[in-house]
């Protein structure tokens, strides 16, 4: 109700200003690592997060962190990791990032251990590494199936002693600029609803992804594409937005937990996919470029999961895009499980291992727990029902591979919000390593930039405009009192539409319809109203997040329409094949001078000869 009293509370909030050399937005793995690095470089750092510290989406990462340490298989090296990453990304990756990532990931893992992470061990006492989809050798450093929690807690517990100022439960709504340069951020604290200004020499975006644009997702509420949208509106380029990763195995039942992730580690430990007829369908469709690396029969696949170095991986461990599509095909062909998924069976390994039950509980404790508690199903006895779930966006802010600076001076991005490393499809395990490799680089370069350039000037009218934007939903009030409609309905409609029309299988007509739908929803989002006051008001928070989801949805849809082929996470039923014409560029979107989204094709820079050779050698 937009009563006089409500409006009075609303406008009474004071705007506090905080000054730092570097502002980091987002406190998952990338944000924490960036903050630690910037602080180590002598910068005063403000770390802003939407949730409490330590709750960011990194905690959800299960399987592990890819790094060619060669602890388990000494044939591994950064070169093989590089080649695997490029192959997984279908060669449209930023090859410089793939190179740096493969080279630096081992040092970042060792550093986590030096900061207190407690990884699982090999028999000779080194950090243990496990198999994962698309990785040629066992490469994922891990802690059971809760590696992300280990990473975020380690970084958090290290970071709190580094003099970083943490602003928990704060949302940033606008980046502040001085000419071309980003010089701070404007937002509000969620607990009390007061507006805040953060002035800084540089800003690092580490806001994660956009999964909440889709209905079935493994992502938490925070994943509303804030960083993508902030960068876009500040004039930065977004790249590869058509590439959304649908993780092949999310829970499908019960309905209320649909989308929750089932780790790829289940398949890494020997879990197999079957359709309703009990057929192991993944053997039916093995892509050409992986044929040499895939097991010929179930027996070889099993040996691979048990560490036999002469065996090739089972087809369940092909890349996520491929496995997700195969599952989708089975379901569409009427061969799915009762609740619209397929069966993922780890219980079968009791045929192979005498102590299978204990083994599964030890290797996959949170999966055991998750199914027991949410579905009443014992995974050591029965198969799980799984289906694809929106998991990750490969696309994001276009950055320089070395410094992680975007096309806007002073604005950096690291982790999921940045594009490039993963190309058209991310390999499992490459995300956690991405966070720390490029989080560190972003922090280092942001601190350097801030030191060289100092603080900028923020015009008061920028702040006034941003502050007005905060209050508008309250001024409109609730529909019951003649105000705007509530924000949740608009959000749900967007999620339904994106899931149906720009999801795992796409076509021109659906996506054109989605584009029109997004326009209509933008109009409605601009008019939503909220009730209550500013203290911890989820309706208001949702209203503030909505425009970001819409910006990201539009970018995904426009890029997906433009790419008339199938590649990686992007699959079109009207262009089912990969087309070499589309291998030479990335799709870029940018805000045009008229305020509309502009799309262009940007040629991929020629790869260095030594890297080309590495790819050839590892074919």
């Amino acid at each position, binding site marked *: 109700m937009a009563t006089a009293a409500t409006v009075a509370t609303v406008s009474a909030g004071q705007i506090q200003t905080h000054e730092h050399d570097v502002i980091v937005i987002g406190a998952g793995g990338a944000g924490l690592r960036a903050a630690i690095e910037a602080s180590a470089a002598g910068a005063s750092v403000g770390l802003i997060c939407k*949730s*409490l*510290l*330590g*709750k960011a989406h990194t*905690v*959800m990462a299960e399987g592990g962190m890819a790094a060619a340490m060669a602890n388990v298989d000494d044939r591994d090296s950064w070169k093989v990791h590089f080649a695997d990453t490029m192959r997984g990304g279908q060669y449209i990756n930023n090859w410089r990032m793939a190179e740096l990532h493969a080279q630096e990931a081992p040092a970042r893992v*060792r550093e986590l*251990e*030096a*900061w*207190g992470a*407690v*990884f*699982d*061990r090999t*028999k*000779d*006492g*080194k950090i*243990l590494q496990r198999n994962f989809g698309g990785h040629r050798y066992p490469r994922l450093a891990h*802690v*059971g199936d809760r590696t992300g*929690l280990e990473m975020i*807690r380690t970084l958090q*517990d290290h970071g*709190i*002693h580094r003099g970083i100022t943490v602003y*928990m439960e704060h949302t940033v709504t606008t980046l502040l600029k001085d000419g071309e340069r980003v010089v701070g951020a404007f937002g509000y604290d969620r*607990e009390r609803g007061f507006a805040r200004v953060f002035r800084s020499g540089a800003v690092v975006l580490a806001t994660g992804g956009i999964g909440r644009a889709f209905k079935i997702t493994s992502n*938490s*509420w*925070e994943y509303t594409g804030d960083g993508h949208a902030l960068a876009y509106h500040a004039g930065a380029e977004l790249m590869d937005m058509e590439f959304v990763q649908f993780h092949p195995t999310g829970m499908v*039942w*019960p*309905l*209320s*937990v649909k989308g929750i*992730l089932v780790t790829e580690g289940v398949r890494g430990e020997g879990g197999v996919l079957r359709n309703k007829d009990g057929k192991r369908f993944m053997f039916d469709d093995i892509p050409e470029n992986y044929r040499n690396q895939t097991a010929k029969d179930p027996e070889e696949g099993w040996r691979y999961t048990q560490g036999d170095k002469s065996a090739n991986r089972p087809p369940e461990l092909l890349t996520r895009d491929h496995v997700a599509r195969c599952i989708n095909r089975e379901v569409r062909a009427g061969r799915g499980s009762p609740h619209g998924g397929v069966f993922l069976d780890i219980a079968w390994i009791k045929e192979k291992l005498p102590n299978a039950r204990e083994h599964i509980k030890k290797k996959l404790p949170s999966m055991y*727990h*998750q199914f027991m*508690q*949410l*579905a009443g199903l014992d995974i050591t006895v029965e198969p799980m029902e799984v289906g694809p779930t929106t998991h990750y966006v490969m696309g994001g802010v276009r950055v320089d591979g070395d410094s992680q600076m975007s096309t806007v001076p002073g604005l950096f991005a690291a982790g999921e919000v940045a594009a490039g490393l993963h190309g058209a499809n991310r390999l499992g395990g490459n995300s956690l390593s991405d966070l720390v490799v490029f989080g560190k680089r972003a922090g280092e370069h942001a601190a350097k930039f801030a030191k060289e350039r100092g603080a900028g000037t923020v015009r008061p009218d920028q702040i006034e405009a941003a502050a007005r934007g905060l209050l508008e939903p309250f001024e409109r009030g*609730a529909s019951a009192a003649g105000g705007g409609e*509530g*924000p*949740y*309905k608009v959000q*749900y409609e967007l999620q339904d539409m994106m899931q149906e029309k720009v999801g795992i299988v796409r076509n021109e007509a659906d996506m054109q319809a989605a584009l029109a739908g997004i326009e209509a929803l933008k109009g409605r989002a601009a008019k939503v109203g*909220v*009730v*209550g*006051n500013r*203290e*911890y*008001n*989820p*309706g*208001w928070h949702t209203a503030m997040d909505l425009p970001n989801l819409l910006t990201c949805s539009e970018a995904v849809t426009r890029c997906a329409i433009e790419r008339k082929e199938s590649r990686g996470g992007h699959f079109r039923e009207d262009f089912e094949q990969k087309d070499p014409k589309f291998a030479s560029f990335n799709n870029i979107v940018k805000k045009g001078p008229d305020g509309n989204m502009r799309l262009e094709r940007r040629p991929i820079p020629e790869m260095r000869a030594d890297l080309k050779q590495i790819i050839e050698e590892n074919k």
Partner: protein
Amino acid sequence: MAKATFRIWRGDAKGGELRDYVTEAGEGMVVLDAVHAIQAEQANDMAVRWNCKAGKCGSCSAEINGMPKLMCMTRLSDLDLTQPVTIEPMRAFPSIRDLVTDVSWNFRVKKTITPFTPRPADAADGTWRVDQADVERPQEFRKCIECFLCQDVCHVIRDHGKNDEFIGPRFLVYTAALEMNPIDSADRVSDLKHKHGIGYCNITKCCTKVCPEHITITDNAIIPLKERVADRFYDPVKRLFRVFRGG
């Protein structure tokens, strides 16, 4: 679908009340689903903290029918829906609004604990060699998702308000994870006795009972720490030794 009544605490630091909301209770739903449905359809401004909805982040702690639980991991089918389901915020912490409490004390406490301090590396490349058996002890404690339900239920904090003298089960588990980390070299035993109030814990095991990660808080973390404190400060032989040494 059957309807169920949820009696949810609405209010802030100044006070509040339990209010009834009726919503559908579908198959497989958890308490957080019901709260979200009510929030979306009947009370847009109802404050609730949550993130992962998969029991991994520890954000949605609340007291459901008086029991400290994660809302995302409590299935409606495990509750008696013929009676209203009461959902209240964690009562050991100050209220912010509705189901959201001020848990900032926990973050301040953590900073007072001596951080991880590695011993010299075992190998030339700066890495350590550790047995799997030796990492398993701290790994149990590192499962902690910091939901603070153990802090909420602990009577030393909840009933006696000893927050200035006692760090609570969460941070005893945190200390145990550090103390039992085979790579760590710092000593936190004196702090446990003098600064962190381990003596206040009288092993009622309520914390262990509510832990959603099933960490054996009392038996595996607190009691071994108490033993270390007893061994250091109450062993008569060592005591005598200290008198002579002047320690």
